[in-house]
């Protein structure tokens, strides 16, 4: 299928609930994985893959596609879900996540046919790959763009700031960084583990356009990405969208709880989460 498609808020919200159901199912089936940071990134994936990114799941190697690079690459449950809901992966495959022989590896393995531009999983690395892709697109005089998703925790890696310095230096205004700022990491609150604030000022000081949003409001995510599209034509600077989010968003017992970074729900927890998400679906469709 060809994207982008027109923005439809209610439709996107329904898709977000489906994605959350996928995330819960994948981690439950695998008995491991990262639900918290997957759930916080849902609306960004939904808006990006449906309404912004120029891509075609029937022609995954299309030369003029925009590229998405996942830098916080442990959130494969969200990544595989969006790829399955936009035609790259059969949704039936999602239950093979993290199992021996499955292409749905714990951390992504490069698989362009299934929409995975590049593998990843070691934090601090894929932002710089995205920078290289953006530079390559410029050298080839392409009008395409690169979107890269990171997190505030990943921004503790020093290599991220090497990249943050080089992208404006090379005037890569075709690159948009999305920061899933959910304020929690494995060992606790980001501010207690290693403070990254003031994040927007840091990016401004590194010569980026900066947009602060609520990462769970699809309209805000959409407007910010549209603003990036404007910036990419009117300024030489790259754009950082800093999206305040809630880890575990959408599943009440996981929301804002550090322990759900890398833990799978058991059967009882799975049922409870699905019930809650189905109730959300019902409210939206009534």
């Amino acid at each position, binding site marked *: 299928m060809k994207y982008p498609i027109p923005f439809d808020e209610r439709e996107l919200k329904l898709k977000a609930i489906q994605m959350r159901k996928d995330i819960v199912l994948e981690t439950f089936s695998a008995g491991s994985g990262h639900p918290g940071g997957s759930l916080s990134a849902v609306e960004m994936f939904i808006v990006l893959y449906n309404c912004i990114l120029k891509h075609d799941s029937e022609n995954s190697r299309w030369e003029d596609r925009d*590229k998405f690079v996942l830098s916080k690459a442990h959130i494969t449950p969200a990544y595989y879900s969006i790829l399955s809901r936009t035609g790259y992966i059969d949704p039936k495959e999602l239950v093979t996540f993290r199992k021996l022989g499955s292409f749905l590896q714990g951390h992504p*393995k*490069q698989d362009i046919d299934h929409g995975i*531009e*590049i*593998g*990843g*999983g*070691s934090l*601090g*690395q*894929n932002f*710089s*790959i*995205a*920078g*290289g*892709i*953006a*530079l*390559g*697109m410029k*050298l*080839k005089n392409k009008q395409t763009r690169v979107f890269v998703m990171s997190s505030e925790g990943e921004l503790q890696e*020093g*290599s991220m700031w*090497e*990249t943050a*310095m*080089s992208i404006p*230096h*090379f005037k890569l205004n075709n690159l948009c960084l999305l920061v899933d700022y959910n304020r929690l990491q494995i060992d606790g609150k980001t501010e207690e583990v290693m403070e990254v604030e003031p994040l927007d000022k840091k990016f401004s000081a590194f010569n980026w356009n900066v947009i602060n949003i609520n990462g769970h409001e699809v309209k805000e995510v959409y407007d910010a990405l549209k603003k990036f599209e404007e910036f990419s034509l009117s300024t030489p600077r790259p754009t950082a969208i800093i999206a305040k989010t809630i880890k575990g968003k959408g599943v009440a017992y996981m929301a804002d709880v550090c322990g759900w970074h890398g833990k799978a729900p058991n059967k009882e927890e799975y049922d409870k989460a699905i019930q809650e998400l189905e109730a959300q679906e019902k409210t939206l469709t009534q």
Partner: protein
Amino acid sequence: MRNWEMKLTRQGWADALIELGEKDPEVLVLDADLSKSTLTCLFKEKFPQKTFNFGIAEQNMINGAGGLSLEGFIPFVSTYGVFLSGRAWEQIRTTICMNKLNVKFGGAHGGVSVGPDGATHQALEEIAIMRCLPEMIVIVPADYYETKKATLAAAKIKGPVYLRFGREKVPVVSNENDEFIVGKAKIMQEGTDVTIVACGAMVAEALEAADMLKEENISAEVINLHTIKPIDSKTLIESAKKTGCVVTAEEHQVMGGMGSAVAEVLSQANPVLMGMVGVLDTFGESGTPEELMIKYGCKAKNIYEKAKKIISLTKKQ
């Protein structure tokens, strides 16, 4: 002592890059503020639009190269071997090798012969930490011509290639018209009593050692193992079968280096006694290249002595 013509290996790297720049529109050069040392400044003079300086930031440079390769370019990444293979090892492992990206690495300033800059700048571990990476090809050319040919060959290989070369002028042991095949060791001279396997600047030392042995009627076969990975097992096994004992010589840590790679082959196929010449679990220091090669045991004399010892031990077996 042979009367060698002396040439820079890094000049071979730069000359090959210029040749590639002229014919291959996809070839790019990436620097980390050391282009004047690695001589990629010569490429930049000719092709400023194809050269990108990433500043003193190797991790970003290497993954940036990975990104460029995803857009169809062939990036040649250039800096000192210590920073290239060491500082950004995990980028090379997880991004470049795991995804089999088409990125080429030119690790300059390998070995103690870097000289007065001292231990921090003398790369002694690259062969070990690069050859253990799946997908990586590791080449240690012996001289100017081999460095040039290896660089040209790397451009034709799809996937990561690591080239190691030094700072100083080294003897020219090959001819301009010699064939250079990645993965095919070169027998520099045939012999029957001992096999000397060497790489890089140690190939010339090995030939000098063979001359010293010849004076005592000992016939040494000298193999230039310029490609450490994939290793030419066939040539190594055949030679070991013929001579019955092997000495390896490298300007690198003996632990995990070229000699270890040779031992991995021979111990499993045709075990013979081996002696290893190289840096023995220590770091270098400041000094002249010649002083350091002597102090750290990387001279023809060391190879000669090791060969005599291994031959005598083999006879006692």
